[in-house]
């Protein structure tokens, strides 16, 4: 009994703040998206905001673009991270230096990476200059547009750059927990290196990989500053569209901005439940 009160006492300040700010923000967003904004003189509930955005082409294009960016960059980053983790777990000369370099951009903020990508891949950027040097192009505009482009290549490059070390590190930690015994047993029993990876290591890594990929997907789906800096104007990524609607002089656009926020939140909540499910299964096994 005493212990229960102790737990409540220890937890409640953190829970009050997290619930108040986080759940509070989401609930207020939901209410606002339903058109109820007493501070703006609106006191009725309706689904107009959702109806409006679901009827607009702009929203669909933004949603598809954002989904495409998040999905593509997560898949590419996951594949590269698997490869990197497989190499980095082996012992070789210079491993600690390589390991450090592999982690270095973990603490570099996304925005810095985005600016770096901009200076590398824009039409007057480093690679365009290199192409000019080798006489592949004669003027900047001949360099393929990789920034502000419809395929969002610059944005995807930035996310891949940032997420490979993150997923890779989680995979390395998982590999350490799993150990080598299963693989060694498979090899002794005659499995080839590929079979050993495909049928032994990958299934063991999969829950951890999927969990990491879900976190990355949720993040890339809701990130603002990278598409704002590297993305085209139309269609823009969903968080950028939401921000634009929110800061619009026309206050009627506010509920629509909040509705878009809710859609972003809903998608990440699905990811959280997937993550929690996987984490629990992983702990049990």
């Amino acid at each position, binding site marked *: 009994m005493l212990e229960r009160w102790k737990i409540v006492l220890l937890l409640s300040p953190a829970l009050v703040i997290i619930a108040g700010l986080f759940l509070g923000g989401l609930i207020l967003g939901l209410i606002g998206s339903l058109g109820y904004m007493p501070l703006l003189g609106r006191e009725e509930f309706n689904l107009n905001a959702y109806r409006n955005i679901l009827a607009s082409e702009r929203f669909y294009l933004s949603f598809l673009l954002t989904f495409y960016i998040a999905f593509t960059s997560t898949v590419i980053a996951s594949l590269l991270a698997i490869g990197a983790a497989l190499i980095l777990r082996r012992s070789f000369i210079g491993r600690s230096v390589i390991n450090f370099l592999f982690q270095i*951009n973990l603490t570099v*903020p996304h925005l810095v990476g985005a600016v770096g990508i901009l200076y590398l891949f824009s039409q007057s950027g480093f690679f365009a*200059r290199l192409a000019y040097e080798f006489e592949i192009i004669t003027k900047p505009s001949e360099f393929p547009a990789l920034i502000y482009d419809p395929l969002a290549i610059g944005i995807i490059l930035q996310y891949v750059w940032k997420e490979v070390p993150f997923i890779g590190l*989680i995979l390395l930690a998982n590999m350490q927990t799993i150990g080598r015994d299963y693989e060694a047993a498979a090899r002794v029993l005659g499995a080839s290196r590929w079979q050993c990876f495909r049928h032994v290591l990958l299934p063991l890594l999969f829950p951890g990989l999927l969990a990491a990929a879900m976190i990355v997907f949720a993040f890339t789906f*809701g990130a603002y500053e990278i598409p704002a800096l590297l993305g085209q104007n139309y269609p823009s990524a969903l968080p950028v569209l939401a921000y634009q609607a929110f800061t619009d002089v026309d206050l009627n656009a506010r509920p629509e901005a909040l509705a878009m926020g809710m859609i972003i939140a809903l998608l990440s909540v699905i990811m959280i439940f997937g993550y929690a499910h996987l984490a629990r299964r992983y702990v049990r096994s």
Partner: protein
Amino acid sequence: MRILPAVMCDLEKELEVKRQRIESGEGLSWLTWFSLILLISWLILPLIPLAVWSISRSWFFPDITPSAYSLRAWSYVFSNTSEVLPALGVTTLIAFCATIVSAVIGVPAGRALGLYQFRGKAAIELLILAPTIVPGIAVALGLHVVFLNIGLAGSYLGVLIVHLIPTLPYMVLVMAGVFANYNPNTEAQARSLGASAIQTFYYVTLPAILPGLLIGSLFTFLVSWSQYILTLLIGGGRVVTLPLLLFNFASAGRNDITGAISMIYILPGVVLLLLGARHLTGRNSAAESLRQI
């Protein structure tokens, strides 16, 4: 079917040899080295033009390297008229305060989650995990009206409070990990020898959790340091932190100043990595929550 003991023994020996061979590795083939070097270069590459831009005077297309170098951008950054130093101060102050508040509130919560089993623990862990995954923009859009109404929008305090959404859960998760490996019996011993609750905390608990608390605090600092959209939405442009300034200079095409601000902006993270790289690898929860940065 029964396997003869001798065969068993052979199999075991072979298994051991195989295991050792996989563990020690057979070195890397040149192809593996090549892909590894390629990957590492790609991870470092975007930082290089930023560093070069910060010391270049003119660097026009199609020059591969700047045609003239100068420290103009750096002297601007450190001059009294630039906005960079105030922004650096504001960013540091907000991150520092967010870390202190997160530690004071997060350490007890981490203790509860790390040491005790209780009903509803899974749900509480989920609630604490959620803010590290749900994008800040979805939460901040909803909070904005209330912050505006109570005068917190556009204020340093408002930005500090909204930064707690990612920093506090992060600290709680790290501390839960620390307390999961902590033995509370020593506290009971100290108490039975006559130490007060404060003495017990100061002389027994704190030294035991200090390494984890320090690493957790440094990363919490970095989580706040890296926030963009929360600051933009709640600060409303009146609270100017380094990332906001960086974004503005980058979109205005001032590459040299952007480069210099970038170098300042990544400094704490790189220092932290040098200090804490060992602690980072292999600790899952800390690495996973790096998503906030």
